[in-house]
């Protein structure tokens, strides 16, 4: 039943790609917001 | 003649004159010197030779691949000429000076398009005879149809090439970005050109070339219109 190994590979790859991308997006969002907070704070100092 | 018609006619004549001026300027400019043409034409011949070595001495294999090899050579050598055409404008800042009239962007694009087309046709005038000799191609049988296919394929290639080069020539890594952006878009054109050329070279017993030629025409028309539209709305300096 080597067929199953391909099915498993397909599903495994799908879950891996989708979850990795989801994590990447959440991280990108967090980093972006941190950067913006820093920029805004420094704006505050400038008045 | 009533006002609007006269205005349209004068506008058209004015535009054609501007287009031709740009064609002339492009073809006679320094970057388009004979030396550059010679280099590109020679490179094309060299690529054909390399393909010959890559496919191997078996004539049957070469004949089977010939149409594809010729068109790939057109693509690889032609792509080198598009960026140059735009780089001139960048250097002198000539583009800003040209943009005085409303219809001018279209004129610039068409002018560049025609200049590039003439250049690539000239390269093909060298390339096709060389390929005919190297690969022993029966070009005389359907010479007229073959010329038509070459013209159609080249037009689509140059249309998109001129457009993408307008962008790539202003970017870093322009030599790699132009093929990267352009070549995937050319895949339908490549398929149509290679198939119809191949059919014609093999005698076109079943008249299949016609369907592929129609694909080429559709491709050319759609992307000519789309590129002109895109250029007018997207290039602002």
């Amino acid at each position, binding site marked *: 039943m080597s067929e199953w190994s391909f099915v498993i590979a*397909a599903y495994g790859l799908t879950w891996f790609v989708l979850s990795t991308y989801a994590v990447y997006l959440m991280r990108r969002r967090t980093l972006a917001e941190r950067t913006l907070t820093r920029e805004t704070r420094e*704006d505050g100092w400038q008045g | 003649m009533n006002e609007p018609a006269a205005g349209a006619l004068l506008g058209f004549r004015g535009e054609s004159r501007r287009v031709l001026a740009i064609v002339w300027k492009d073809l006679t400019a320094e970057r388009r010197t004979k030396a550059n043409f010679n280099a590109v034409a020679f490179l094309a011949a060299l690529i054909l030779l390399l393909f010959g070595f890559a496919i191997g001495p078996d004539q049957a294999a070469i004949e089977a691949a010939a149409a594809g090899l010729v068109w790939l050579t057109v693509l690889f050598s032609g792509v080198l000429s598009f960026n140059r055409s735009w780089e001139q404008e960048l250097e002198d800042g000539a583009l800003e000076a040209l943009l005085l009239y409303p219809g001018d962007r279209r004129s610039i694009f068409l002018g560049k398009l025609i200049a590039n087309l003439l250049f690539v046709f000239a390269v093909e005038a060298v390339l096709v005879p060389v390929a005919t000799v190297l690969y022993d191609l029966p070009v005389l049988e359907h010479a007229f149809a073959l010329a038509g296919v070459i013209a159609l394929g080249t037009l689509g290639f140059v249309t998109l090439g001129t*457009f993408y080069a307008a*962008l790539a020539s202003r970017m870093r890594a322009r030599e790699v970005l132009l093929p*990267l952006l352009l070549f995937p*878009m050319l895949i339908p054109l490549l398929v149509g050109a290679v198939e119809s050329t191949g059919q014609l070279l093999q005698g076109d017993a079943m008249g299949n070339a016609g369907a592929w030629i129609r*694909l080429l025409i559709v491709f050319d028309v759609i*992307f000519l219109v*789309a590129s002109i539209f895109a250029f007018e709305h997207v290039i602002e300096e």
Partner: protein
Amino acid sequence: MAGLTEGRPRLPRWVIPFGLFALGFFILAQAIGLLNSPPEIGMGNLQKIMYVHVPAAWNAMIAFALVLFWSLLYLWKRQEKHDLLAASAAEVGTVLTGLALALGMIWAKPTWGVWWTWDPRLTFTATMFMIYVGYLALRAFTEDDERRRRWSAAVGILGAINVPIVYMSVRWWRTLHQPQSTPSTVDADYVLGLRMNAFAFLFLLIFFVAVRYHAARVEREAEVRLEERALADGAVHV
């Protein structure tokens, strides 16, 4: 400092709950696909790969339709948010296309014995992948903001125009050389699993685009404030 928008871009409140819903629905759809359908006559259990390959490919096309839509909208209205939406959709679409391509190859190997075959779907997917990688490369290599927006819109539109043309030409190309046995069209047994997974991927697509777009807005906002501050500092020192 005004920045790009009046306030700080906020992730809309529906996004995270929707993401959780999408995740749950996805798990459900995948389970139904895997467990509910009997092995197919010709393909056996390989048929189950269709439940990930086909939805990924379909939704990639939806993503590229969104790229077209927002690119056209940008050229019309010239509002930056449409450019960022188009770019977000392009990134998600490219990910889905790459996945669909890999899955197509995983399906091809046991079916035809080779990892690659020049069948219409694989070649079409590979071509679209290349076209949109080009789109992303253009954005990455263009530094001027205004230019990047305008040029991406043009390239996105041209790419989308080519989708039907590429599709038709590779199909003719293949059917001419060799009548291809394409995977069977879906029987009643399999429709439920396919539809559910198609929607599952769609919900994920929406979630991904929403988060990507939000991140893009925040990044742009930070960038704009940085530029404004740099200009202001420069003015002071003059």
